[in-house]
């Protein structure tokens, strides 16, 4: 029998501000949104490395911090991280290569060019020592991260998983991706767990795979994750389908579970 899965917490860091179980906090006037996000806006405790993080690592860390601040980790050895990072660490790759061409390759930048560096600071700060997965799929990295997290929970390899979806690129680099790109950075986090002691605050999550429809255009990875977050923000029951990349399925949410 499949284990039940609950969404214990969430966050969304978007153009307009930060969404969390506590509500919506718009960016203060004068702040250039995501690009000027501060540690104090996402985390109560100091973290000296925060200012040195590259954009994708910083957004992943911020999204995880907001979500985890509403859902403390109780079993770090069995808490995993599944990250969807469709753009990888492209901006950092470009900055590192510029440092190479200037004849002074930066070791700090080089270590941040690995997509997995985005999970390192989350693991270090929150002490998360469970399974790790980094997906850099094109359109479905968020879907794949969610699907993988559900599998880790249902097989008992983890009892909590932080699922992250991060789209991060420095402003000047968006032109590299062509006309179809919206040029908007964003980061989402969901804390999924097999246990629920939140007094009815958590939402139950069900996942079902489906037969992909090749005649339909591929769904947008960002819109898919955004739809899930909207259900969580409004505490609405609903189902979010995904179709694309030879895969299909949907995540359904039910409210008021206890």
């Amino acid at each position, binding site marked *: 029998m499949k284990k039940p899965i609950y969404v214990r917490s969430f966050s969304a860091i978007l153009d307009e501000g930060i969404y969390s179980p506590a509500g919506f906090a718009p960016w203060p006037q004068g702040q250039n949104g995501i690009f000027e996000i501060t540690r104090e806006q996402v985390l109560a405790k100091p973290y000296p490395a925060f200012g040195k993080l590259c954009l994708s690592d910083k957004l992943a860390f911020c999204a995880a911090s907001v979500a985890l601040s509403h859902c403390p980790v109780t079993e*770090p*050895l069995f808490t995993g*991280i599944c990250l969807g*990072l*469709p*753009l*990888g660490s*492209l901006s950092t*790759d*470009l900055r*590192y*290569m*510029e440092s*190479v*061409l200037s*004849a002074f*390759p*930066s*070791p700090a930048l*080089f*270590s*941040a*060019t*690995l*997509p*997995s*560096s*985005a*999970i*390192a*600071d989350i*693991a*270090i700060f*929150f*002490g*998360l*020592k*469970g*399974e*790790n*997965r*980094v*997906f*850099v*799929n*094109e359109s479905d*990295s968020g879907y*794949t991260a969610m*699907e*993988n997290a559900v*599998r*880790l929970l249902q*097989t008992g*390899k983890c009892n909590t998983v932080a699922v992250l979806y991060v789209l991060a690129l420095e402003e000047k680099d968006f032109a*590299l*991706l062509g006309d179809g790109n919206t040029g908007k950075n964003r980061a989402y986090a969901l804390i999924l767990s097999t246990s629920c002691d939140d007094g009815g605050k958590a939402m139950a999550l069900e996942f079902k*795979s489906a037969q992909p429809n090749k005649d339909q255009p591929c769904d947008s990875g960002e819109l898919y994750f955004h739809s899930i977050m909207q259900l969580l923000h409004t505490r609405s029951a609903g189902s979010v389908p995904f179709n694309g*990349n*030879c*895969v299909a399925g949907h995540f359904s949410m039910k409210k008021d579970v206890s």
Partner: protein
Amino acid sequence: MSISEAVILEQGEILCGLGQLQETVSDLFENQTAIVPGPCFGVDVAYAPFKNESWRSLTTATLTLQTATDLSDIDQSETAFVFCAAKGDLTPLEEYCISRKMPADFSPLLHSQARYAKKLLGLDDCRTIVVSNACASGAIGVQIAREMLIAKTCKNAVIFGFDAISRFVATGFNSLAALSPAGAKPFDAGRNGLTLGDGAGIVVLSYREPFEDDILIKGAASTNDANHRTGPSRTGEGLHRAASAALRDANMPPYEIGAIKCHGTATAYNDAMEAKAIVSAFGEEIPPCFSVKGAIGHTSGAGSLLEIIVAAECLQRRKIPPTCGFENLGVDEQIPVCASSQTLLHQSMLCLSAGFGGINAAIVLTEHSA
């Protein structure tokens, strides 16, 4: 009652030194000298092996492996294509940074490389999963594929590991002072860093009742050190937990492991940490340990897949390859590192991997006997 397992259907040759030197798995068992082409010893920062030829190494690797691997019978609608790389082929990105001109049909992202490789392999209709867990990418790709097979998300998985040496990667490791000027000597007293290598390999997995002598992916696990961005935990605790979890997943006691395929990069900290992890997991009865990085170099994210292929060969040949470059033990723990080929006494292997971001991965392979 029959019990299905994740079975290796195909494990082809491994490619090392792409475009320059292609060596087979057999060389690892027969030769005791390094087969790394060695362009990065001492790193020349002007080194750019495939300049102005975008994705030449990816093309070479994919077409060569396609020739060596029979993928014709695969039902693509039931197959996942799992592309595993730390950075893949970065030469187009390097060219862009130098010229500031975007090559036609160019995307600098890893999933573009995966799509390109999938097309060359004739697997257009497979679902694609792109895994980038640093130097443990290949091992975690195998773990993900196995979990998908068990969950019946797919019936087959083609796991493709690929990473090429580029100016980007070579200067990066050099900036971290991680490269050896003399060549990698895993676990040796005189070790002073790693040797970079190009690498690619394919493993095809299926989920079915195993036949006699089939190689099975019997257990898998990953952990995070939660300790440091690039360096391994000094205690080896994270790798120890990964190894123990993989053994539990395989439902196998440590004494049934015939050999340990170590991550064995030949850096001071990795090998010291790994020796501690092995002692913690195995106690006093430690099976023979080896690393192939002295022979084929550190092939980044592809490396852990290539080394799983080598481990599968160990099981089939009942032989453990030598640890090229190893002469005298240079870690505090008394682990039995193989300096020369040995007979494999048990039909199971443990494969260990680690990567930047604090990631550890462990895979248990077993040769099936009815």
